[in-house]
């Protein structure tokens, strides 16, 4: 028998119609934030001339496609995490991350074969900009994704934090990649990997505190 004013009564009394956590909302928010980041990069720093002409260099297409693939794979895992269920998995991001890892792995192999990592890439003036612009874009993208995620119920906040950072870092670095003057695998292997990795680490550090329930 249900007692008057039982905990269940209180929960029932508190019931209001609620909007479900919808994957489409996360997708729209992230795409809008990414488009905003691209717009800011275009206005503040200019896009690459080949991108502006609509005929980008092949390396730009490959790295941008890889970043988008990684971003969407991580975003998919975040969306799955927001709506928990025993037995469900979303591991596509692992394969996307492994594929993205080909850039630093290729850089390392080429460095070993060619007598070291190119010093001009390490000392590149645009390298810190890659980190800065990518991270700033990721903060904006990760911010809206975290706001959306707070309505969900992720059961592993730390893993979800990594994934939010990975998705946001990928999309944020994608925005930078449309401006990035470099066309070398070494640059992508070093600076892009650092940018995405740093964003993932920031997601791991910051996001879990914001999504606990």
């Amino acid at each position, binding site marked *: 028998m249900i007692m008057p004013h039982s*905990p269940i009564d209180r*929960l029932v*009394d508190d019931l209001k*119609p609620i909007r*479900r*956590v919808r994957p489409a909302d996360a997708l729209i928010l992230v795409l809008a934030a990414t488009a905003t980041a691209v717009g800011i990069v275009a206005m503040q720093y200019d896009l690459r001339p080949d991108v502006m002409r609509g005929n980008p260099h092949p390396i730009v297409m490959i790295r941008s496609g890889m970043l988008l693939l990684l971003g969407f794979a991580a975003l998919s895992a975040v969306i799955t*995490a927001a709506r928990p269920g025993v037995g469900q998995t979303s591991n596509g991001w692992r394969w996307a991350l492994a594929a993205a890892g080909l850039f630093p792995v290729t850089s390392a192999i080429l460095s070993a074969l060619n007598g070291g990592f190119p010093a001009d890439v390490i000392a590149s003036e645009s390298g810190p900009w890659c980190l800065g612009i990518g991270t700033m874009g990721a903060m904006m993208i990760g911010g809206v994704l975290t706001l959306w995620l707070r*309505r969900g*119920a992720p059961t*592993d906040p730390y893993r979800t934090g990594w994934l939010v950072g990975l998705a946001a870092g990928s999309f944020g670095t994608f925005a930078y990649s449309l401006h990035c003057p470099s066309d070398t695998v070494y640059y992508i292997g070093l600076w892009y990997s650092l940018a995405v990795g740093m964003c993932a680490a920031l997601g791991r550090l910051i996001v879990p505190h914001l999504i606990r329930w």
Partner: protein
Amino acid sequence: MKTNDPSLAHLMALAQAGDQQAYRTVLVECQRWLTRYFVRRIAPSAIDDLVQDTLVSLHRKRASYDPSRPFLPWLAAIARFRWVDQLRKTYRADETELNEELTADPHDPAIMAKISIDRLLMLLPDGQACAIRLVKIDGLSIIEAAQQSGQSEPLVKVNIHRGLKRLAALIESE
């Protein structure tokens, strides 16, 4: 009224739209299910609080349920999350006696097997599962658990810490 997963999913969808009658039925059924779910996995005197905590979590996170999916795996994920959280909290030594009268009575053995808490513990290395069972479920002290398990006291502590961390990561995956 005997409810099953499809009817709970339907009732929860109505509850998300604000139907209080449907919501009350969902909560009463969940309360019964959770009580069976947690029995023997936590001290008996802590079961009611854990069930209530889980119901409150269900209420706060009801927007995260997708009615096109089965209901019990969603409820079980929330229940496991709250259970692991409860294990992390300080254990009170006077709440150690298990109530043998309470037994689990699954309606659907297949679903229960998949989402049972024991399945989670079985996925841990033996040392970690043993340390968690002895200290967090059976209520032994670290010293007693060390003597019973043959592990050193620091190892019992490390195994509990690592085991709880791993449990949290396994909540949905198995």
